[in-house]
C-alpha cells in the first residue's frame, strides 16, 4: 500500500512538469468556441503552409470570455474565435479584443459583417430563415418573419427555444428595425401560433415539420443542409423571407485578436488569411455556411437553395440589443 502512495505522489510531481509552457516565436494560441471539427482543417492547412504551430482549446463562448478576462495580461491566447455576433460584440465590450487595422480584412469582409471598431471580423455567414413543409404549404403563402404571427398560421408554427442565441439575435435585429412595440406584437403572435412546445434544436424542429406536427418554422440554413444531406427526400424546403423589405436575417461566426496577444503580428496575419478565398472555402464548406468574403462562391449544394437579399444592418446590433430581446421574449411567454 505504501508503495502505491509513494508512486502516486511521484506521479503528481511528474504531472507538474506539464505546466511549464514554452513560448515559441512561430506559434499561435487560439481559444475557439467554434468546434474542433470546424476549425481543425483551417489550422492544419495554415500550419502546413506557413510552419506556424497552432495550439487551441475549445469551449462555449461564455466560459472562454470569462477566462480571457480573468487571465488578463497573462493570457496565452492570441486569437478568440466564436460563433454569433452577440458573443463577438460582448467580447469587444468586455475589452478582451484589440482593434486591427488591416486593408486586407477591410477589403475582404463586408462592413456590416464586422465590428465598426475593427475588433472582430465575421468570417462565415449563416442565414436564419423560414423552413416549410412541401406537402402542406405553398411557398406563395409565405412572405416575412412578421407574417408568421398572423392568425392563418395558428397551430401550424414550430419554433426553437428562445434560450438559443440565434433566436435572440433574430429578435434583437427585429427590434432594431421595427422597434420594441411592433416586435413584441410579432413575438406574441408567434407564441400564439405554436403547434407544440418549443424545440431544443433546429433539427428536431424540421423533423417535426416532416412528421406533420407543424407546417412552418425558423432555422439556420446549415442545419437544413445537414438534414437534407442525410435524408434527400426530406419533405421540407427553405424560403427566403423579407425580400421586399429588410432581407434575410444573417448571423456570423468570427474572430478577433486578443488584447494581450503575445504573437500579435502572426495573429493578424492568420486572421487576414482566414478572410482569403482558400480559407473562406474551407470555413464555409465545412459547415455548409455562406462565405463572408463575397468573392468566394458557396458550396454547390448551398448555392442551389438560391441567392437572396440579406439584411445589411450591422450584425453588432444583435449584441447591443440582445438582453432587451431576451426580456421581451420572457414577457411574451416565448420559452
Amino acid at each position, binding site marked *: *500500500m505504501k508503495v502505491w502512495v509513494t508512486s*502516486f505522489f511521484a*506521479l*503528481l510531481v511528474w*504531472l*507538474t512538469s*506539464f*505546466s511549464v*509552457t514554452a513560448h515559441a516565436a512561430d506559434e499561435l*494560441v487560439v481559444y475557439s468556441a467554434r*468546434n*474542433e*471539427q*470546424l476549425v481543425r482543417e483551417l489550422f492544419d492547412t495554415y500550419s502546413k503552409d506557413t510552419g506556424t504551430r497552432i*495550439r*487551441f*482549446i*475549445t*469551449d*462555449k463562448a*461564455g*466560459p*472562454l470570455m*470569462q*477566462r480571457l478576462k*480573468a*487571465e488578463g495580461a*497573462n493570457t*496565452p491566447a492570441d486569437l478568440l474565435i466564436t460563433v454569433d455576433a452577440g458573443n463577438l460584440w*460582448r467580447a469587444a*465590450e468586455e475589452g478582451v479584443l484589440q482593434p486591427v487595422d488591416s486593408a486586407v480584412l477591410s477589403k475582404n469582409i463586408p462592413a456590416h459583417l464586422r465590428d465598426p471598431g475593427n475588433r472582430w471580423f465575421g468570417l462565415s455567414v449563416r442565414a436564419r430563415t423560414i423552413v416549410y413543409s412541401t406537402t402542406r404549404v405553398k411557398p406563395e403563402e409565405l412572405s416575412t418573419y412578421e407574417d408568421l404571427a398572423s392568425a392563418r398560421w395558428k397551430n401550424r408554427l414550430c419554433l426553437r*427555444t428562445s*434560450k438559443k*442565441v440565434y433566436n*435572440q439575435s433574430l429578435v434583437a435585429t427585429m427590434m432594431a428595425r421595427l422597434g420594441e412595440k411592433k416586435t413584441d406584437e410579432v413575438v406574441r403572435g408567434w407564441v400564439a401560433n405554436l403547434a*407544440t*412546445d*418549443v*424545440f*431544443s*434544436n*433546429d*433539427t*428536431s424542429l424540421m*423533423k*417535426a415539420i*416532416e*412528421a*406533420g*406536427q407543424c407546417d412552418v418554422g425558423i432555422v439556420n440554413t446549415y*442545419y437544413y443542409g*445537414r438534414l437534407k444531406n442525410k435524408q434527400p427526400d426530406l419533405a421540407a424546403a427553405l424560403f427566403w423571407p423579407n425580400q421586399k423589405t429588410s432581407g434575410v436575417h444573417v448571423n456570423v461566426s468570427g474572430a478577433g485578436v486578443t488584447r494581450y496577444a503575445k504573437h500579435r503580428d502572426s495573429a493578424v496575419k492568420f486572421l487576414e488569411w482566414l478572410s482569403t478565398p482558400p480559407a473562406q472555402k474551407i470555413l464555409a464548406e465545412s*459547415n455548409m455556411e455562406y462565405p463572408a468574403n463575397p468573392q468566394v462562391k458557396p458550396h454547390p449544394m448551398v448555392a442551389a437553395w438560391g441567392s437572396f437579399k440579406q439584411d445589411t444592418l450591422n450584425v453588432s446590433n444583435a449584441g447591443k440589443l*440582445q*438582453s432587451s430581446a*431576451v*426580456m421581451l421574449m*420572457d*414577457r411574451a411567454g416565448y*420559452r
Partner: protein
Amino acid sequence: MNTSVSQRNTRPELGISGSLDVGVWQWRLASLAIAAIVAAPILIVFAAWLGPSSETWPHLASTVLPGLLRNTFVLIVGVGSGVFILGVGLAWLTTMCEFPGRRFFEWALMLPLAIPAYVLAFVMVGLLDYSGPVQGGLREMFGSSAWFPSVRSEGGVVIVMTLAFYPYVYMLARTAFIGQGRNVLDTGRVLGLSPWASFLRISLPMARPAIAAGIALALMETLADFGAVSIFNYDTFTIAIYKAWFGFFDLAAAAQLASLLLLFVAVALVVEKQMRGRARYDVTGKLTNEPRFHLSGWRAAGASLAAGTVMMLAFVVPVARLALWAWESALSDLDSRYFRFFFNTLFLGAVAAGLTAFAAVLLAYTYRLRPERLTRAAIRFATLGYALPGSVLAVGIMLSFVWLDQQINSVAMSVFNVKLAQVLTGSLVALLLAYVVRFMAVAYGPVDSAFERIKPSLLQAARSLGASNWQILWRVSIPMLRAGMFSAALLVFVEVMKEMPATLLLRPFGWDTLATRIFEMTAEGEWERAALPALTLVLAGLIPVVMLVRRANKRWT
C-alpha cells in the same frame, strides 16, 4: 492518559476523541487546507453579492422565476422519490434476495452510471417524441389520431432523471446492506418480525446515512443539470442561472442565483442531519455468509422483471441507440486520436478518483479525531459545490487558479525577478484539482457514511494500545473503510469521465477527452455523430464498474 480515557467515556458519540493528542493540529491544518481549496470557488460564487445589483433580478422575478421554482420543486420531489424507490428497492433485491439473474443484475444495475443524463434524455426524446420512430409507427398502424403521452413533459423528465441518477442510491444502499449482513435481520426475525417488517424497521433505518448520501448526490446532480432539462425544454432554476449569464451577460446575477441554490441545498442537508439526531449507525458483529431469501414463483419473476426493465430503459436502449448511430454515421470519425481520448479519459479519471477519495478520507477522519464546529462547517461548505451548475463552478475554479497564479507571479517577480505568466492555469495539476473540488461531495458521502458504521470502540481500542493517529487511520480505519472508499473512488472516476464544463475550460492544450469530444459534436446539435465518443465513454466506464464489482465480491462473498 487517564483523563483522556474518562473524557472519552463521557463523550461516546464523538468517536475517538483524544483531543489533546500530539499531532492533531497537523491533521486539522491538512484538512482545513483541503477544505479551503475546495471551498474557494464556492466563496467566489457567493462573493457576487458584493457587486452591484442589476436589472436582471427584477426582470427574472417578475417573469420566469415563479414558474422555474415550481418546476424545480416538482423535479426534486419526483426524482427524489424515484431514486429512493428504484435505488433502495433494487439494492435490497440484489443483496438480500435470490432470484433468476441476480448475479448479473448485481453489477449490471450500476452500469447506467456511465451514461450521462443528457445522453439518456436525448435518446429517449428522439425515440418517443412525435417525430420519433415509436409514435411514427403508431400513427402508421392506427392513423393520425393515435394517442401517446407527451414525452417532453414533467413526467418524462422525472422518469429520465430517475433512470439516470438511481445508481447513486443503489450503490450506496448496497454497500450499507452488505455491511449490515444477515445477522441483524435474523435478530429481527427471532423477535418475531416478518421479512417486510424487519426490512422496514431494521435494515432501512440502519442504512439511512448511506441512502441519504445517495439521494443527496442524485438531487444535487438534478439541481445542477442543464443538459437534460434543456432537451426536455423543462425550465428549472438552472435555466435562470444560464439565462442571466448567456442571455443578459450578467455573470454576477448568475452567481447570485447560483448561491441561492447552494443555500437551499445547505439547509436541506442540515435538516436531514438534524432529523437523524444522535442516532449511531455502527455495526457490531461479524459479517456472515448466510443464504439469501430465496424468491420463487411470481415473486422471483417480478424481481427479475423489475431489474430487467430498469436495466433495459436505463442502459440497453440508450446503448443500442448509440451503437446504431455510431454504425450508421459516426464510424468515419474513428481514428488514432481516439486512443488518446480514451487514455486521457481513463488517466484523468483514475488519478482524480485516487486524489479525491484520499482527500475525503482525510477530511472525514480529522473530523472524527476532533469533532468541532470549524472543521464541520468547512467540510459542509466544501461539499456544496456539487449542486452548482457545472459551468458556474468551472468559472469559480478558474478564477481561483488565476488568482493563485497572480500571487505566485508577484512573489516570483519580487523575490527572483522572473516573469512566469501562468503556472497553474492551463496545467494538468489545475485540472486535477478542479476535479477534486467538483467531486468532493461525491467522495465524501460514501466515505463519511462508511465511517459512521465503524464502531468507535474499535478505534478507541487501537488508541489505548498506543497507536498513533496515522496508524489508526492506516491500519484500522482504512481497511474497514475499503468498501466505502472504493464506492467513492468509483463514483468520482465515472463522474470525471463524464465531466464536461471544467474539463473544457481548464484542460491543457491537447488534453482532449471523450467528454470534450461529445461536446464538439453536440455543440452544433450533431447528436448522431456524438454517438461514437459517447459509446466509447460507456465502454471506458465499464472498467471502473467491473473493477468495483470484482473487488466487492472478493471481499464479501
